[in-house]
Structures are given as C-alpha cells and as structure tokens.
C-alpha cells in the first residue's frame, strides 16, 4: 500500500531543513497581541511588519464594542449557510454598507476572501467560458478558476499586450470571457496597469474582475481600491475584496452593478455550502468600513509610512521588487537559504516580516516581504529600516550562513 503522505516528502524535507535554521517560518504563534503593530512572539515583544493590517484597525474601541454587542445579541456563531439560517440582519447591513462605500448596486458577503474568489469565479464562469488570469494571481483566484470548470488561459504578469494576443486567438462566440486582475499584487506590491487593460477591453470585449484584496481601503481618493485610484471604476465589472486586511476581521465580498448579480447567491457553491461569517466578525466589519469612510487620514498615514520605509530601504541600497511605493514592500534575497537566515535574524532582533519563496513568490524570487500599517509610528518604521540595515544590507548574516 502506498502511504498517501509519500508524495509530500520533498515538502517535508524542505520544512525540516528550515526548522534546523531557527524558528518555524510557517508555524510561528503570537501568544499575545499588544496592539495592531506589537505582539509577543517566542516570549519577546516584536514589531509586526508583516500583518496586512494596513489600516491598523484591529483594536479600535468602537469596532470592538460593535463586536461585543453582536456577541451579546446574536451569539457566537450563525450555525448555518447564507442560503439557509445563516443570514442575519448584520450580513445584510454589511452588504449595504459595502455597496454604498464602493458606489456599486450589489454586494455579496462571503465567509473569507478566499471563498469570495472561489465563489465569484465559480458563480461567473462555467465550462464553456474562458477565464484569462494574470500569471501572478493569488492562489484563491487559481482555485476559483479550477472550481468554475472554465477554460483557463494565463497571461504574462501585468502585460496587457500579452493578454490581447491571447484574446485575439480566442473565439468570442465560444463562450463568455472573464479577465481577472489584482489591484495590488500581494507578494511584490505592484499594481495592475489598469488603463492598459481597459484599452484592451474596449478593443476585444470581455468582463473584468479586479481583486482589490490589498488595495481596498488603501488606494484611491475614496479608498475603494485601484479602480478608484485610476478613475476607471465604470470599466471594472466586478470587485472582490477581503475583510482580513484593511477591515481587520474575517470575511470577503464580491460587488458589481450587473442587474442579475444576485444570481451568484443561488449558483455559487462557496456561498451556499459553508457557514456565514460570525456575528461579531460581521459587526466589526460594518464598523470598520464606516471608519474607512470617516477617517481618510488613515490612508494618508499609510501612504506616508509606506514612502518612509521604501525610501529608507533604498537609502540602504536594498533591492525592492517594485519601483512604485505601496504598503507591500518586498526586499529581494539572494536565495532561499539567505532569506531564511535573514528572516530568523530579523525576528531575533525584534521585527516580524513575511518570508516568501517559490512557488508562493513569483519568478523564483526569495523575498522578505513587509506590509506597512497606518498604525506604525515613524519610530517603528525607522526601527524596521535600522534592523534591515544591520541584518540584510550589511550582508554579514548572509555570509555567515
């Protein structure tokens, strides 16, 4: 009999090699959260620079109060799917709040952002349709595409010309065409060149979905994301987003203006066959979305902090993956070994960042990925820069590896 775990031996070996070099990159636990930007990890107070907590919104008094009230009034869990007993007034209210924030007619709340992508891809596309997806798309987009049963054509990252070549090879009469982009790409921090893609859309014809997971709340004069920043919202048919980043909760959404949009509720398995977000998560999300609208200064602070970190890294001579400033700032490492050694050294010195190695990181890159928060102080940012200077820029750690 073949052991089902045999196939994992490469991954298991890779993980144990990593463990020999220090802490468990993929199994770290924060035993106490002191603030949006501080945690106790391995018994030490650590500055968090890899949380995706862009708005620093996880400890806001009014959000916490809203969550506690929902716990008291609605209980700990919904024990049901959105299409059965799991839709509460809170979920409806959250959908309305988001639709209003986004200036869209319709919004559907899912249980996580991962499921929002699964649910939207599978709800929109079927076996006769073709999804054209950016090569560097998040795994939830890939998995959603697979679930949909559609034909999947992958185009070169951020390359509208490459997409157009592939669209031209495709017979538009054979089925619907959905193009999927991300506002800010999660690993590297670059934006989709939306204007270029919209030009192609006008020439070739397709429906366009943008996953604003990392750009919702972050980009644009209204914080609606990349489409808002680019002034091209009317050219984007569907938006996907998550509550796990700027909203500081759990859940996800899909939004759009299509008159039949709600059909997704009755045709999308990731919406129908899972329990709805907990009452407290829905309630804190409502409060957080209101806050995003009421406090644009958070966006300004995030932009200021991002630029400070970006400039600081460049002054150290570090190579970042992307030339434009965004709250995701990824520093290139020579190889996986060096990345692990430097990640451990940074953690010991008191700063947590993400590590990204292939296949999670694109183009065989090995990255130390920082995500900046509006809740970081200038002192926090300067400390992160200082530690990167000591650990990464000096090369001392990499050499001793």
């Amino acid at each position, binding site marked *: 009999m073949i052991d089902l775990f045999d196939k994992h031996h490469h991954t298991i070996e890779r993980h144990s090699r990593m463990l020999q070099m220090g802490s468990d990159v993929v199994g770290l636990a924060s035993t106490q959260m002191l603030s949006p930007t501080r945690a106790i990890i391995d018994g030490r107070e650590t500055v968090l620079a890899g949380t995706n907590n862009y708005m620093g919104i996880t400890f806001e008094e009014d959000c916490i109060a809203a969550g506690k009230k929902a716990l008291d009034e609605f209980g700990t869990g919904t024990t049901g799917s959105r299409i059965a007993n799991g839709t509460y007034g809170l979920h409806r209210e959250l959908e309305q709040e988001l639709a209003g924030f986004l200036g869209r007619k319709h919004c559907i709340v899912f249980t996580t952002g991962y499921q929002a992508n699964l649910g939207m891809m599978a709800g929109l596309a079927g076996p006769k349709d073709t999804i054209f997806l950016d*090569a560097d798309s998040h795994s939830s987009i890939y998995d959603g*595409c697979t679930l949909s*049963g559609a*034909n999947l*054509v992958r185009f*070169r990252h951020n390359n509208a010309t490459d997409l157009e070549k592939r669209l031209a*090879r495709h*017979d538009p009469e054979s089925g619907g065409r959905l193009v999927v982009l991300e506002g800010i790409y999660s690993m590297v921090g670059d934006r989709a060149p939306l204007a270029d893609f919209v030009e192609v859309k006008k020439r070739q014809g397709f429906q366009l979905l943008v996953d604003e997971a990392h750009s919702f709340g972050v980009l644009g004069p209204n914080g609606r994301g990349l489409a808002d920043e680019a002034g091209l919202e009317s050219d984007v048919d569907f938006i996907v987003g998550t509550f796990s980043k700027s909203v500081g909760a759990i859940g996800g959404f899909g939004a759009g203006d299509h008159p039949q949009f709600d059909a997704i509720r009755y045709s999308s398995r990731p919406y129908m066959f899972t329990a709805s977000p907990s009452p407290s998560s829905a309630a804190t999300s409502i409060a957080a979305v209101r806050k995003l609208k009421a406090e644009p200064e958070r966006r300004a602070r995030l932009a200021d902090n991002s630029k400070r970190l970006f400039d600081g890294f460049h002054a150290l001579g570090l190579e970042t993956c992307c030339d434009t400033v965004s709250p995701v700032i990824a520093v290139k490492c020579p190889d996986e070994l060096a990345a692990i050694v430097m990640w451990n050294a940074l953690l010991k010195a008191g700063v947590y960042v993400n590590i990204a190695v*292939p296949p999670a990181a694109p183009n*065989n890159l090995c990255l130390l990925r920082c995500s900046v928060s509006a809740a970081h102080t200038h002192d926090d940012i300067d400390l992160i820069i200082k530690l990167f200077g000591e650990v990464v820029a000096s090369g001392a750690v990499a050499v001793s590896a």
Partner: protein
Amino acid sequence: MTADSKEIFAKLSELLAPFNSKNIELKPDTEISTDLNIDSVSVMDFVMEVEDHFDIDIPLNVLADTHTMTDMVKVVEQRLAQGGSS
C-alpha cells in the same frame, strides 16, 4: 514518433532546459513535474514559453491530464491542429 513530433519533443526539451536545474535527461516518459521536481508555478511558466513559441493557447485545465513529455507533445500537436484557438 513522427518527424513532426520529434521536432516538437526537441523544442520542448530546449524550452524546458532553464527549468531543469538538475539537468535530468528528458525521455518520452519523463514526468515533467514529479521527475524534474518542478513546482506548479514553474510548470505553468514553462507552458507559457511553449505557448509563445508555437503561438498557441494551452488552457491550464487541459494540463490536468498532461504529465509526461509525450503527453505534452500530443497537446502541442492538438492545439496546432486546432489553429491555436482555445
């Protein structure tokens, strides 16, 4: 193999070389992902090179049943015969 499929095999081997870091010998029954220990994204990147070279689309859902070099040669032949459209 026909002359055409030999030519395709040779071209695929050439396009696969940059991903085959351990220089494992490529035979018709070599499993591209498992034998060469190439991760899922690199396999898709390789397929993109193949698409560009032959000016065809190879939808990712077709790849679910494509494992060996021979499978891949067949996919390319099929897509070429269909005029490249997906």
